[in-house]
């Protein structure tokens, strides 16, 4: 089946390639992976992802899985989350982590950066209201810190608070005493992460060759 598949793919994936920017090889590899995860179904469910053993230790496993099933990350203006996603949606989410190439222009890089930022923002903003509230942010920080750094939840909470205040102080420098900083908007979010080279950080290498897929199979 593999051989025949391989021949038909370029045409089959042309649309996906245009949409996500992946190469045909990458799409092929991801498709194999997708089928592994879904157990040869057309769609993938949360349970499928939950059962990835390598993910078990990840402190933000839940957030990541939520983000994958989040409709906002599909480049469409829908809100909400899927119960199951097909391969195309899977690719769309994955395309957020596409690295820039040498040919990427400055504008494209900027767009890429925004896109990645948006993904992050959506991940933090669990209730879709366009603002990362303190509670939401706390959860994220606690998640990141409590397991990985072995910090007490109290400390994580404190750090989240401090981070939040930092956002407030950088974005609203002249806040009146009675003002209340409600939460991080996307603009503020962009502002505070200006120092990070998102376009150079938030990506992984999708392999062009299918060799490592065998390793992938072994993990699942």
């Amino acid at each position, binding site marked *: 089946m593999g051989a025949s598949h391989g021949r038909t793919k370029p045409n089959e994936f042309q649309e996906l390639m245009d949409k996500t920017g992946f190469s045909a090889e990458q799409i092929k590899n991801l498709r194999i992976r997708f089928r592994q995860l879904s157990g040869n179904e057309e769609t993938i469910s949360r349970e499928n992802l939950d059962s990835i053993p390598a993910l078990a230790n990840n*402190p933000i496993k839940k957030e990541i899985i939520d983000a994958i099933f989040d409709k906002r990350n599909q480049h469409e203006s829908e809100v909400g989350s899927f119960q199951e996603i097909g391969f195309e949606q899977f690719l769309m989410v*994955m395309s957020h982590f596409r690295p820039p190439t040498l040919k990427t222009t400055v504008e494209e890089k900027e767009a890429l950066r925004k896109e990645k930022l948006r993904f992050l923002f959506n991940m933090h903003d669990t209730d879709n209201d366009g603002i990362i509230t303190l509670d939401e942010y706390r959860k994220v920080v606690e998640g990141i810190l409590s397991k*990985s750094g072995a910090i007490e939840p109290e400390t994580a909470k404190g750090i989240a608070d401090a981070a939040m205040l930092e956002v407030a102080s950088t974005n609203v420098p002249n806040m009146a005493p009675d003002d209340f900083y409600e939460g991080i908007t996307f603009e503020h979010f962009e502002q505070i992460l200006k120092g990070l080279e998102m376009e150079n950080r938030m990506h*992984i290498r999708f392999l062009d060759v299918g060799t490592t897929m065998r390793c992938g199979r072994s993990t699942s």
Partner: protein
Amino acid sequence: MLLLGLVLLLLPVSAADLPGTGAPPLRGPGLGFSPPAPASSSSSSAPRLLLIPQPGADPRAPGVASARSGMEDPTGPVEEQEGGQHHHGGGFRVVQWEWSYVQTPFIIAIWLLVASVAKILFHLSQRFTTVVPESCMLILLGLVLGGVVLIANKKQLYQLEPALFFLFLLPTIVGDAGYFMPARLFFDNLGAILTYAVVGTLWNAFCTGFCLYAAKLLGVIDERVQADLMDFLLFGALISAVDPVAVLAVFEEVHINDMLFIIVFGESLLNDAVTVVLYKVYISFVEVGVENVQTADYFKGVASFLIVSIGGTLVGLVFAVILGFITRFTKKVRIIEPLFVFLLVYLAYLTAELFSLSAILSMTFCGIGANKYVEANISQKSRTTVKYTMKTLASIAETIIFIFLGISAVDKTKWAWDTGLVSCTLIFIFVFRAMGVIGQTWVLNRFRLVPLDKIDQVVMSYGGLRGAVAFALVVLLDGERVKAKDYFVATTIVVVFFTVMFQGLTIKPLVNWLKVPRSTNRKPTINEEIHERAFDHILTAVEDIAGLQGYHHWRDKWEQFDKNYLSKLLLRKSVYRKSELWEAYQKINIRDAISVIDQGGNVLTSARLSLPSMASRASFPEVTNVTNYLRENGSGVCLDLQAIDNVPGAKVEEDSETHHVLAGNLYKPRRRYQSHYSRHFMPLGEKERQDREVFQRNMKSRMETFKSTRHKRHKKERSLKKRRGSDTKDDGGDKPRRNVSWHDKDPVVVPVESEEAEHSDPEKDEDVGITFVARQVETSGESPPSVPAAVGGAQSPTAPPSPISEGSQLPWKGGVSSTPPCVSVEATKVIPVDLQQAWNQSISSLESISSPPAPVEPVHPRVIALSRLGGPRPASYTPPSSLGSSTSSIGAQVSQGSFSFSEKKKKKEEEEEEEEEEEPAAQELQPLMSSLRPPGPLPPPPPPPGSAPGPGGRRNPCVYLRSLVSAPPAGSSEPHSRGPTQL
């Protein structure tokens, strides 16, 4: 200055020749320097560590004699130096010339001195140093020095000795580089670094060697250069390696972006293994002769490379583990922590040398590996010590290396010039470097997530600097076997000079012109740190989901391993749980605390500090470091002198100490913070509980350390004041008072306090009262000038309402009210007039330093009035400039009176009672105070200041009096600490 240094350098050398030729020179104890007698610069294997060589052939060059006038016979220097020494024929010598005894360390010290002074001189001109790299200047200086030495001595006395270089100079630089290597960045780019280091260096070495041979065959290189293929390959091997010292020296000043820097620098470190192996292999080939080399030898060469590189790395890692493990147990002997770091890192280097493994690799990986654990284990002070010592050593070693490079170049006997060889080498190394970089980058970019663009490649090609390693290696060559050694030496020198000086000079403009992204020397914010972590996890998760086992996957695996095993093994239990992020958070907190206090409080930044409870809650051992950090910053925030002695076992005390510092500093911001956020998540009750806790802790510690340190008292009092300010919040915002209260941390306060304390030493009880009020009035006098107008304005609206109402409310008001009678009695008694005058003067001088005296005026009327009440006190009547001081002196006396009063009260230990009793007294005072207010009949009438600060300034003292007078009781017994919270 330089001349002086030069004379000093020449002096010992020539002097060494004089009496030292016969006597066996004593070795410097423990230094391991060999005696200077056997001077054979061509012996490659025997390590000669001396800077000075060759006291051999002609001990007394005429040049030296001319350089040092009046030196005609061996007694010359003795007389010149010692002055009184005349008899040296026999018998007892009063003063002896012990040159041979001190020679080695003396010369080393002189060289260090010259190098350091040279550094100072270079940095005199700011503009100059931004254009010309220091390394260039040092080489030039070396050239000049070498020239002078040569002219003076007809032969070169100094040169860069390979053994000295490899055993002492290089390790200091590599150790520093390895230990402070940004590990994450390094490992993120490890693939590229390794490629450039191994493949690139091999490529350079072979291409340069073969092409030089081709040039030789073509006749470009002169016939006199007797070298065959093996010699050229050997030369290519040693000349092709990018030099860490040169790269560091040049790139440090260029400030290119981190990634580029780490790639070039990492390459220069890691190519050591390649260089070492190639060098050794070729040397052995040259020795046995090319025709005798068998095929197996080539494989041995490859095997040797693997062993040297991997073995070196392993040795480094083993020492890193040892180092981490040792520092786990140094809690009781903090003082030797830095020593362990130096010793083990150096031992890693030496051990690798011992087994002829790659010493640079070993040291680098030892540093990288140990850094994380060591930094977590050792104390903050040790960290600072390690950092500074390493930087100092590395800096001085670098200086010496470049100076000696310059000096060595002057030695004509060592090298022979061939234009063909030199120009060919220059061209080849440059061309092959560029080709190698471009080719490898092309390959690498197919795999790299962050591709290296053209500009990066240009900088990397251009940054391929050669340096002292190549020079030391070429000097090590055996002139017997490598016939063309002198030509190689000359060529190496030219290459080194060209790359360091020409490329070093031009790389900065080039980088500017190409607009290479620079590094930003900015501390990451909390959010950035958080997201750095988030990225790691997100990317790992995505890799896992996508079924890729990429970099992040393995990094995550490694971190799990580190967390589960390594950290448990190498980290102290107490630090084990702490994370870097937490530290960053901590630092930001402290930084903000400082800035808040310095600026007088920015609402939002201060808000960030708002979690003082965390310091106490999370039991981390670094709390003490917070104190240290504060002190190191010299911000004057922490005046806790006691905490300086880091007494082991006193950790609990220090904890609470730090807590007090934090609580004292953070308390106010916290209130701010709550005004923003507490509505949502922090129950009000908790806040009050914390307030009380802070307060009670302050009170308790005040009791404990009542007499111990003035500074501490000072600090606590401040927090107490803040407490007061918050208690009377209903009277109108706490902000102004907080602002005022910061002024008591002014350095001015401390001397006042101390003097006061001295005066009142006999009367123990009054000490505190004096202290407080002295500062209080000081504050009132000071605050208007030093606080900007905004704060001054803010004071007036929020000043406590009417004194009367307060008096009726507040128990401590009574203390003030009852003062007038006491003042007259106490004043003369406690502070004698003469002492008082001196005291006043000191204060006024201090005050005039810190602030213009004008706005003290609001206090003025009261001063006069009180002084009138106080009776004979002419000394305090120093006209306007010293008004503040007189005020404070009187205030002090007032407080003494008041204090003694309240102290008596306090003995009853009944606060309610006290309150009742004092109330009438307070009311009595009110008319008095108010009558004093109009600033009319003053002997020295200063111009009335702004109306706003006037009443504020006038009232503030009252506020302070209130709070301060009540302080002693509060500090001395528990019921009193209860007092404020009751309100």
